[in-house]
C-alpha cells in the first residue's frame, strides 16, 4: 500500500513540470495567434483611441514577460481571467461546459467499450478466421471517417429522414427543464432528482453524438483488446489454468481477460484524451454546449484567457486521468510500483 501511494505521489510530482510546460506553451501560443483582441473587443466602429483604451484595460500594452508574470500570478490565486468574448470569468464558463463535454465523452467511451471489448475478445479467440477479419474491417471503417461527417450523416438519416432521433439541439430538448445542478452531468443529476422524463430526454440527446464519437474509438480499443487477449491467451499461466481443469469461462475471463485489461486500460486513457480533442468537431455539429466548441470560438477570436483556461483545464484533466489510470492499474496489477518508472 505504501509502495502504491508513493508511486502515485511520484506521479503527481511528475505532473508539475507538465503543467508548467502547458502554461508556458499555451501562453506563447495564444500570443502568436493572429488578430488583435483589442480591435476585436473594441467592436464595430471603434476609433484608434478606443482601441488603445481597450488594450490598456486588457493589460495588453505591457511587455510580454510582464503579461506572463501577471497571468501566472492570477493563476496562482486561482483566477483564470475573464473571457473577452463572453465577458464571463473563464472559470465559470469552464465549470458549466466541462460536465457537458465529459458526459458526452464518457458516454461515448462506455458505448465504445461495450462494443469494442467483446469484439476484440471474439476476434482474439478466433484469430485468422473470417470473424476476425470482419471485426478488423468493421472497426477500421469506423475510424476512417471524419467525425463531423459521420455526425452529419447520422443526423441526416436518423433525424431528418427517419425522424427517430430527437432534434440535435444540444443536451436537452427545450421541452424539458435542466435538472437541478449537482454534478453538471444531466444523466446523473436527473437520476438524483428522480426525474425520469428528463433523464430519458437527456439520454435521447446523447445517443447520436455519443455514437458518432464511439464509432471513432472502436478501432483502437478493439485492436488493443484483441492483441492483449491474444498474448494473454498464449501465456503459460493460461495453459496452467487449463491443465488444472479450470472451466473455459474462468480461464477466459478470470485469467486471460483480467491480464489483458492492463494494456486496454492504458489505451483507454489515450483514447479518452484523444476523444476530448475530437469533441471539438462533434460538439459543433450537435450544438453541444461543451468545452470543445468553446475553445474553437475562443481560438477564432483570439480570446487569450479563454484559450489558456481551456488548455489548462484539459491538461489538468489529462493529469487526473493519468492518475486514475494508475489507480486502476494498481487495483488490477499488484506489481504496480515495484519496477522503477
Amino acid at each position: 500500500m505504501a509502495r502504491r501511494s508513493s508511486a502515485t505521489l511520484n506521479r503527481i510530482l511528475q505532473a508539475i513540470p507538465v503543467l508548467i510546460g502547458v502554461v508556458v506553451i499555451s501562453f506563447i501560443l495564444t500570443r502568436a495567434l493572429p488578430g488583435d483582441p483589442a480591435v476585436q473587443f473594441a467592436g464595430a466602429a471603434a476609433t484608434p483611441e478606443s482601441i488603445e483604451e481597450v488594450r490598456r484595460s486588457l493589460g495588453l500594452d505591457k511587455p510580454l514577460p510582464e503579461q506572463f508574470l501577471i497571468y501566472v500570478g492570477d493563476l496562482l490565486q486561482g483566477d483564470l481571467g475573464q473571457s473577452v468574448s463572453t465577458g464571463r470569468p473563464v472559470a465559470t464558463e469552464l465549470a458549466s461546459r466541462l460536465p457537458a463535454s465529459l458526459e458526452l465523452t464518457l458516454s461515448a467511451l462506455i458505448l465504445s467499450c461495450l462494443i469494442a471489448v467483446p469484439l476484440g475478445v471474439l476476434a482474439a479467440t478466433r484469430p485468422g478466421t473470417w470473424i476476425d477479419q470482419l471485426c478488423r474491417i468493421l472497426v477500421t471503417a469506423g475510424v476512417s471517417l471524419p467525425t463531423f461527417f459521420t455526425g452529419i450523416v447520422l443526423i441526416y438519416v436518423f433525424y431528418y429522414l427517419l425522424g427517430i432521433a430527437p432534434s440535435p439541439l444540444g443536451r436537452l430538448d427545450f421541452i424539458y427543464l435542466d435538472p437541478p445542478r449537482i454534478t453538471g452531468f444531466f444523466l446523473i443529476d436527473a437520476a438524483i432528482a428522480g426525474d425520469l422524463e428528463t433523464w430519458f430526454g437527456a439520454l435521447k440527446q446523447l445517443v447520436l453524438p455519443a455514437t458518432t464519437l464511439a464509432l471513432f474509438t472502436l478501432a483502437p480499443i478493439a485492436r488493443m483488446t484483441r492483441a492483449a487477449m491474444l498474448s494473454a491467451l498464449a501465456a503459460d499461466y493460461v495453459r496452467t489454468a487449463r491443465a488444472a481443469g479450470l472451466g473455459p469461462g474462468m480461464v477466459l475471463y478470470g485469467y486471460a481477460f483480467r491480464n489483458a485489461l492492463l494494456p486496454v486500460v492504458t489505451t483507454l486513457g489515450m483514447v479518452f484524451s484523444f476523444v476530448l480533442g475530437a469533441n471539438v468537431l462533434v460538439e459543433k455539429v450537435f450544438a453541444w454546449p461543451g468545452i470543445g466548441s468553446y475553445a474553437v470560438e475562443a481560438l477564432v477570436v483570439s480570446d487569450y484567457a479563454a484559450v489558456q483556461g481551456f488548455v489548462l483545464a484539459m491538461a489538468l484533466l489529462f493529469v487526473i486521468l493519468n492518475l486514475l489510470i494508475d489507480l486502476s492499474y494498481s487495483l488490477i496489477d499488484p506489481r504496480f510500483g515495484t519496477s522503477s518508472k
Partner: protein
Amino acid sequence: ASDTLVAVTVQTINSLDLHRTGTNRASYQVAINSYDRLITFGSKTLEDGSVSFDYSKLEPELAESWTISDDGLTITFKLKPNAVFWDGSKVTAEDVKWSFDRAVSVGGFPSTQMKAGGLVRPDQFEAVDEETFVVKLDKPSKLSLPDLAVPVPFVINSKVAKEHATADDPWATEYLHTTPAGSGAYKVARWDSGQQIVYERFDEWAGGPLPKVRRIIVREVPSPATRRALIERGDVQVSFDIPDKDAAELAEKVKVYSTPIANTMHVVGLNYTFEPFQDPNVRKAIAYAIPYKDIFDTAAYGRGAPLWGGSETIEDTSWPRKSPYSHDMEKAKELLAASAYPDGFEVPLSISTDLASWMEPTALLIQESLGKLGIKTEIEKIPGANWRTAVLVEKRLPLHLENFGGWLDTPDYYFFWAYQEGNLFNSSNYRNEEIETLTSETLHMAQDDPEYAPKIKRMFEIAMDDLPRIPLYQPALNVAVNSADGYEFWFHRQLDVRSLTNVES
C-alpha cells in the same frame, strides 16, 4: 405548446448589454426585445408581401409624442404615462437621461452611433419633469431622430442600475451585462451563454401591442445543416439568418423571407495604395471582368438584389443602386490594354474565413475571370480575428471583398462611412475632394432639401467612375419560418421576436 416559440440562429450572444465594450452583434437583439427606445420605425409591406421596417415612418415606443423646435435644435419628448419597468416602477425622463448619458459616455460603438445623430455629450439631454425629456442638438440633422430609433439609445431602469454601479463601474456594465433591467416586451428568463436565451413576455408592456407568444427560446446552433434539418422538420419555428442556398431551396417547403438588406452592398474593394489600382483603366477593366451574374447565382443563389448593368443616367437618389458595369470581357481587355499594365499583374485577393460562405465562391469566380485578363490572383483567407484589423483598421488589403451596411438608410450616410477618407469602412484608402465636400454637406441635410438630390447624384457619378468599390449585389437577410408568422425585417439584422406569432399547422 402554442405559447412557446423556438427560433434558432447561428450567432452567439455574448452579453445582455449592448453598451458594454466587446458586445457582439448578435447581442443587439436583447436591446431590441428586452428594452425600449423612445421611438421606433414604422413598418411597411414589401412587394413580395413580407413586412419590413419603414425608415420614413417614426412611431412612438416609450414616447407618446414629440415636437421639434422650429430651429430644429430642440426635440421634446412626452413619455407614455403608463410605461413601467419590469419591476413595476414607472419609466421616467430621469431614466431616459441616465440611459442616454450612458450611451454617449461609455465610448466605443454606442457612442459612435450616437454621434451619427449629433448626440455626443450628456448636457444635450435634459429631464424636464417625470414625463418630459428634451434633447438639444448642436446643429439640425435629419439623422438625429432616426438615430434615436436604432437599438443603441435604449432605456434602462436607472434606479436598479445605479444600485449596482460602483466607483470603477459608474454605468453598472458588470451588472447589466448579465441582468437586463428594462421595460421591453420580453424579459430575459434565462441566458445560457453559448446555448440559448429564453424570453418571457412582459405583460404590462406599454411600447406597443402586446406580443402573442408568451415564451420565446432562441437557440444557438452552429451547424447550418442541423439548422436546416430542424426548420424543415418543424421542430423549430424560426430559423434566423439562413444561408442563401438554403433560402433558395427551402422556399418550396416552408415560408422563407429574403429581404435585401437596406443600405448594404457586397463590393469588391480596390485599394488605392496598390499601384495598379491607381490607374482608372485597370479599375474599370476589373469592373467589366467580374462575372456578376455567376456570382449572384452561385454565391447568393439569386437572393438579394443585383447591382450591375444599371443605366448610365442617374434619375433618382435610391441607394444601393445598380452600377453601370456588367460582365464584358472584350471591354475589360480593351481597358486593360489601354492601361499601364497591359500584361496584367499579380495581386492577392483577400477574403475572411468568417464570411467564407459568400466570399469564397465570389473570390473564386473573380479569380478565374481576372486570370483571363492576365491578372493573377492568389486567394488569401484571413482569419476572422484578423480581418477587421487588416481590411478596416490597417486598410492594407490591395484587392478584397467587403460588405458594409449603414443602419441609417440614406446614401450620404453610406458615403460618409465608405467613401470619405479615413473613415472605417473606406477600406480602399479612397480620397476624392469633391466626395469629401459633398458628403459633409449632405450628411445632415434634410432629404427634401432641393439641393440634396443633385448633390447625391453627383456623388453617385463620381463613385461609379472612380470605382474604389465595385458593387456586386445587395445581400439578403434570409429567415425561414415554419408554423409561425409575423416576421418583420429590420435594418439591424437581428431577430425582433416581438411581432412573432404561432400558427397552428
